[in-house]
């Protein structure tokens, strides 16, 4: 596609063309009006001059008679820039003046003749009939005096006509320059707009083709294009982030479900190929059941997270005694921790109550204890549960003695299916679903609180923060 048709196709250029046409029409009207006015003025002025000349000549005629008149006309005819004069006899033959010949029929009229007529100058050799349209033209007053003798006093029209044509030409030239200049400016403006739109369109095409990292160009002019591009860029950025999140989750889902599915399949295949006895098949089926249960558990966790995150898990907040939960769950986890060579210490005292749901808070604390038991007992050591009761919030903490989570990873581990490399590669027994902390974070969000991860030096401290103003009326007793 050539540049010109595209320029013409822009709104700016189309509007400009319309504007030029309107402007041209107005200019044309102005030219017509101005020249008409000018011509009118010249004619009126000519008539006045001719009439005053006639007045003078009439005086001379009255005082000096015909002879004087003729002599005076001869004298006046020779002056530079003279009027046109003719004294003709009854048959139309010139007796005096600077007109040699005149259009036939003119002398038969009398009075002011505003319609221009052709004439030949005195001494002109070529006859008037042959001069035709090239003959000079004039307007004149025809006055009969005596014995059919007529005096013609008039003015040559060469000057006004030249004036008019000069004026028409200069106005036309000015208009043409204006028109061409306008077209050029509009072309450049339209082209500039087009270039920017082309850039935006090219970037959009890339985005549509799937490259969400692409951004629309933003110049530093801060004009309407830039404002539009900036907000579109923000939108694309948001979409990119959502898309990345979605892709990450679906990749993880694919990966996390593919692994147990593959194992499931392998077991079935192995049983078919190598199983001899009922016992072998039973064994294989049990293994497959375990894998299926594992997948169901992953799905359940995912569903719970998305329900909690979407706010679908509605519960009526009621007072929940978190000290009791801490006692119960320490009790639940004590054997696991002891088997792993560690000890669990519950320092949560008193009778702390928060607003919320006992099951969800229990689930959250279970996940934290589970993580602590799996990853937080690298060299044996201690898992400590403690609580802090401050003016703003009640905080329940689980501290372990493991390697902790590097600062850079603390935000990432809250995302779904994120397992730190260390935990991914460690043995089968401690392989988690990568959903535990995401679920805790989601539960805490539903409780209008938060999950904080901190460095325990050594180990990880995970804190469940229940703000006192959550659900407007959190209460606690000591």
């Amino acid at each position: 596609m050539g540049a010109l048709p595209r320029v013409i196709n822009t709104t700016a250029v189309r509007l400009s063309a319309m504007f030029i046409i309107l402007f041209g029409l107005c200019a044309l009207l102005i030219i017509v009006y101005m020249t008409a006015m000018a011509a009118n003025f010249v004619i009126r002025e000519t008539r006045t001059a001719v009439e005053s000349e006639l007045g003078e000549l009439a005086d001379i005629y009255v005082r000096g008679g015909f002879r004087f008149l003729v002599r005076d006309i001869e004298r006046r005819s020779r002056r530079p820039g003279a009027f046109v004069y003719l004294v003709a006899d009854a048959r139309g033959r010139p007796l005096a003046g600077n007109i040699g010949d005149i259009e036939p029929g003119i002398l038969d009229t009398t009075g002011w003749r505003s319609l221009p007529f052709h004439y030949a100058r005195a001494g002109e050799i070529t006859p008037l009939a042959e001069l035709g349209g090239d003959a000079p033209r004039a307007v004149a007053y025809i006055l009969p005096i005596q014995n059919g003798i007529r005096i013609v006093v008039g003015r040559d029209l060469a000057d006004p006509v030249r004036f008019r044509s000069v004026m028409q030409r200069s106005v036309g030239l000015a208009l043409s320059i204006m028109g061409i200049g306008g077209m050029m400016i509009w072309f450049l403006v339209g082209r500039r707009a087009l270039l920017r739109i082309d850039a935006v369109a090219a970037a959009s095409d890339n985005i549509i083709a799937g490259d969400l990292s692409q951004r629309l160009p933003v110049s530093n002019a801060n004009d309407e294009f830039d404002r539009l591009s900036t907000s579109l860029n923000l939108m694309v950025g948001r979409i990119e982030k959502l898309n990345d999140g979605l892709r990450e989750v679906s990749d993880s889902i694919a990966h996390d479900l593919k692994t147990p599915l593959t194992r499931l399949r392998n077991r079935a295949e192995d049983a078919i190929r190598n199983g001899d006895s009922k016992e072998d098949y039973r064994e294989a089926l049990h293994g497959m059941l375990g894998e299926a249960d594992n997948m169901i558990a992953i799905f359940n966790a995912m569903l719970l997270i998305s329900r909690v995150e979407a706010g679908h898990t509605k519960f009526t907040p009621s007072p929940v005694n978190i000290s009791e939960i801490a006692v119960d769950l320490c009790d639940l986890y004590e054997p696991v921790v002891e088997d792993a060579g560690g000890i669990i210490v519950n320092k949560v005292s008193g009778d702390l109550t928060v607003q919320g749901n006992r099951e969800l808070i229990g689930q959250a604390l279970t996940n934290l204890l589970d993580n602590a038991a799996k990853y937080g007992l690298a060299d044996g050591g201690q898992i400590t549960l403690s609580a802090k009761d401050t003016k703003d919030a009640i905080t329940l903490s689980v501290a372990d003695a493991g390697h902790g989570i590097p600062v850079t990873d603390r935000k990432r581990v809250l995302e779904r299916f994120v397992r730190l490399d260390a935990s991914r590669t460690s043995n089968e027994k401690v392989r988690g679903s990568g959903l535990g902390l995401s679920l805790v974070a989601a539960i805490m969000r539903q409780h209008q609180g938060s999950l904080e991860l901190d460095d325990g030096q050594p180990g990880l401290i995970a804190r469940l923060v229940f703000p006192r103003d959550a659900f407007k009326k959190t209460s606690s007793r000591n």
Partner: protein
Amino acid sequence: MKILIIEDDKPSADYLKKALGEAGHGADVANDGASGHNMAQTGTYDALIVDRMLPEKSGLEIIAELREAGDMTPALILSALGEVDDRVTGLRAGGDDYLTKPYAFSELLARLETLQRRGAGAEAETLYQVGDLVLNRLSREVKRADQTIILQPREFRLLEYLMRNADRVVTRTMLLEHVWDYHFDPQTNVIDVHISRLRSKIEKGFDKPLLHTVRGAGYVMRE
């Protein structure tokens, strides 16, 4: 055991009926709330499996109306919702247990069998006995072959629940629910560790195992 399944999803209902049949239980199926309510009123069943979301009449309405009419047939509510408050409303409406879809059939069967036992009024016993192991609920004593076994309170509750449901499979989720009173899926091996500790206390020095692991399902106390 004769069971009524009220479930509008035909394939699930048929699967349940078939699986229950294989476990030795007869089952009838109703595919909507109204006919389910009708069948529950007219027939005699040992337990009901009721889906929460049903055409014409919801599962909770059926149970509430049955209870009002004095029908105390144990009812297990099935729900696809699985929201935390649902369990509470379900049990408040008169349901005896609550299970979220998707569920493992072994879990459903285990719960159904303990429900049925509860319905038969086994709660009142003070003495549970499995083989030579005896648990006294009043004196809180546990003896095996006349040797006293010292258990921690939590271990006692665990054993008590297992022995009350002797010869029936109990799942890990059921143990977490009844011994610790929490209703979420226990993490992988938490319950197993408790069981193995209990097992070592009641079986150490004795020949005959009493506490058996049922793979893919849970545990059972059996002579």
